[in-house]
C-alpha cells in the first residue's frame, strides 16, 4: 500500500502490519458473531454467546494495546497515494484512506458510547465530541470507584462462597464438622415431619386441630381463572357421590318407616 512516508523504517512497517492483523482478527470475530446471531434459526446457547463475546473483547483489547504502543507513529502517519494507484477503479477505497475525520455514523457511535460511559465514569479527560463527561446524572448510584470497589469485593467473596458450596461434602475442620452434624440432625427432623405430613399420619400436637379440607380440583381453579365464575358443577364425581348418599338416606328412611309399620302390625296382632 502507499501508506506511510518514503522514509518509513522497517519498524513502522511492522507496526502497520501488526495493526492490520489485529484489525483482521476483530473483523473476523465480529463477522462470526453476526453470522451466528442472524443466520441460525435458534439463538446460540448462552455459553457459546459468552465465549464469542469474550473472544471479541480479547481481540479488541489486543488491538488497543497494539495501537497504543505504536500510537506515536500511527498518529503522525499519513497516506499519500502514488501516481500508480488505480484511482478510478478504487475511488471508494481512496476516499476512505484520505478521509481525516470519522464518518458521521461512526461519530454518532462514539458519542453514544461516551454518553453511556459518562453515566458512571468520572474521567474528564475524554471530554469533547459534545458530551459533557464530567456531569453525570445524580440519579445513577454507582460511579467508577464504586463499581471497582464492588467488583474487588465481589470476586473474592464469591470465590469463598463457591468454595464453601463445592466442598460442603468434605470435612475440612472440626468446627465445620460439628455444624454439619447439627445441620444433619435438623434436616432429619425436618424430613421426619415432612414425611409424616406427606403421608398424612396423625402426629398428636403437630397437626392442626382442624383437618385440611380436600383441595379444590385444578379444573375448577382454571375455569375460574378464565371465566371469572365458579362452574355450577365443579366435580361430577362429587355430584354423583352426593346423589348416591341422598338415595341411600332416602332408602334407609323408607326402610325405617317400613320397619315401624311392621312393628305396628306386630303389636296389633298381639
Amino acid at each position: 500500500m502507499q501508506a506511510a512516508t518514503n522514509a518509513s523504517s522497517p519498524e513502522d512497517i511492522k507496526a502497520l502490519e501488526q495493526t492490520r492483523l489485529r484489525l483482521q482478527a476483530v473483523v473476523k470475530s465480529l463477522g462470526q458473531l453476526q453470522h451466528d446471531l442472524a443466520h441460525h434459526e435458534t439463538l446460540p446457547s448462552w455459553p457459546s454467546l459468552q465465549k464469542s463475546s469474550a473472544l471479541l473483547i480479547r481481540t479488541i483489547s489486543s488491538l488497543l494495546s497494539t495501537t497504543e504502543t505504536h500510537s506515536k507513529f500511527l498518529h503522525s502517519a499519513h497516506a499519500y497515494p502514488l501516481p500508480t494507484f488505480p484511482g478510478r477503479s478504487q475511488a471508494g477505497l481512496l476516499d476512505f484512506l484520505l478521509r481525516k475525520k470519522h464518518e458521521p455514523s461512526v461519530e454518532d457511535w462514539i458519542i453514544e458510547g461516551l454518553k453511556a460511559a459518562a453515566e458512571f465514569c468520572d474521567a474528564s479527560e475524554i471530554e469533547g465530541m459534545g458530551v459533557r463527561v464530567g456531569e453525570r446524572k445524580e440519579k445513577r448510584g454507582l460511579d467508577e470507584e464504586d463499581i471497582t470497589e464492588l467488583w474487588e469485593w465481589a470476586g473474592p467473596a464469591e470465590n469463598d462462597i463457591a468454595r464453601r458450596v463445592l466442598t460442603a461434602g468434605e470435612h475440612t475442620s472440626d468446627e465445620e464438622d460439628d455444624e454439619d452434624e447439627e445441620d444433619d440432625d435438623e434436616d432429619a427432623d425436618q424430613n421426619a415431619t415432612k414425611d409424616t405430613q406427606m403421608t398424612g399420619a396423625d402426629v398428636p400436637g403437630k397437626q392442626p386441630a382442624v383437618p385440611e379440607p380436600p383441595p379444590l380440583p385444578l379444573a375448577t381453579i382454571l375455569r375460574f381463572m378464565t371465566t371469572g365464575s365458579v362452574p355450577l358443577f365443579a366435580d361430577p364425581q362429587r355430584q354423583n357421590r352426593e346423589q348416591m348418599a341422598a338415595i341411600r338416606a332416602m332408602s334407609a328412611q323408607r326402610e325405617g318407616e317400613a320397619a315401624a309399620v311392621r312393628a305396628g302390625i306386630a303389636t296389633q296382632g298381639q
Partner: protein
Amino acid sequence: MHELLLFGQVPRSRHDQVLKILAGVAAMQPQRVIERHIVYKPQREPEEPGSNLRRGGSQGIVQKQTKQNAAKDLYFTQTVQSLAEGNFKSEQNSSVQKPNLKVEGNDSGNKWTFQFHDVPDTGDRGVTVRMTSSTDIVEGDPHAYMVAFGNNYVSEYYLEGHRFVNQNVVILLHRILQEPGPRPIQTSPQKSLPTFNSLKPLDPSGGYVLQASILVQDLGKPAILDQGVEELKRFKDLMKGCVELDVPDRLLLDTRVKYQANPFGVQR
C-alpha cells in the same frame, strides 16, 4: 405471542418446601407477585350455534349470507393490575370506611395490562399451546375503556404467589384469592383495595397452583416451537416427584363465551 403451559397442584403444607426447591432449581430468590384480575365478558350474547343455518329460505343468496354470518366467537378478557403488598389498605384504617382516592390507572405505580388468552390449540404436543396477547394500558381508566368496547364486568380476583425464571421457563407458584363473603352484584370493580389479610383463597384448602410457561414469539418456525416444548418437558421431568406437572383439558382454558339456551326469552 404464544404460550406453552403446564400446570400442577401443590398442597398448602408443601408450599414452603416447593418454594425452596424451586429457588434451588432456578438459582434465584422467589419474586413476589400480586396481581388483581378483573374479568370481562362481552355485552352481546353469543348466537345459538347453527342458528344461522336454519333461518331463511332455500334461495341461493342465503347461502352466501351464511358464509358471511358465520358466528364469531366471543371471548372473556381480563385486565390485570400488578400490585405490591403496600398497595393494599393497611390494617389500621380498615375499620374506617374511607374511600381510597387511588383511582386505578391514575397512579403510575399501579400498572394495568389488558390480557387476552385464546382457546388452547388442538393437537397433542404434551404441553398446552395457546395464543396470548397482553397490552399495557398506559393511562386512563381501564374499566371505562373495557366498557366502551362493549364488555361487562364479571368479577375480580387476586393472584398471589412467587415467580421464578429457569432458563426460558417462567415458573409461577400462585393461588387465587377472593374477597370474603358472598359476592355482591356489581357492575364495576371495587374502587379501593381491601386489606391483604382479609382475602380468602378460592381453594378452601389453601393449595397452590404451579404454572410453568414458555413464551414463543412465532409459531411459524417449528424448530423454535419444538425447542420450547422440549425445554418445558425437560422441566417437567426435573420436577417429577416434587410436583406433577400436567396438561389440563384444553376446554378448561376455554375463554369463549358459551351459548346458553334461554327458553323463556327473558333478557338477562
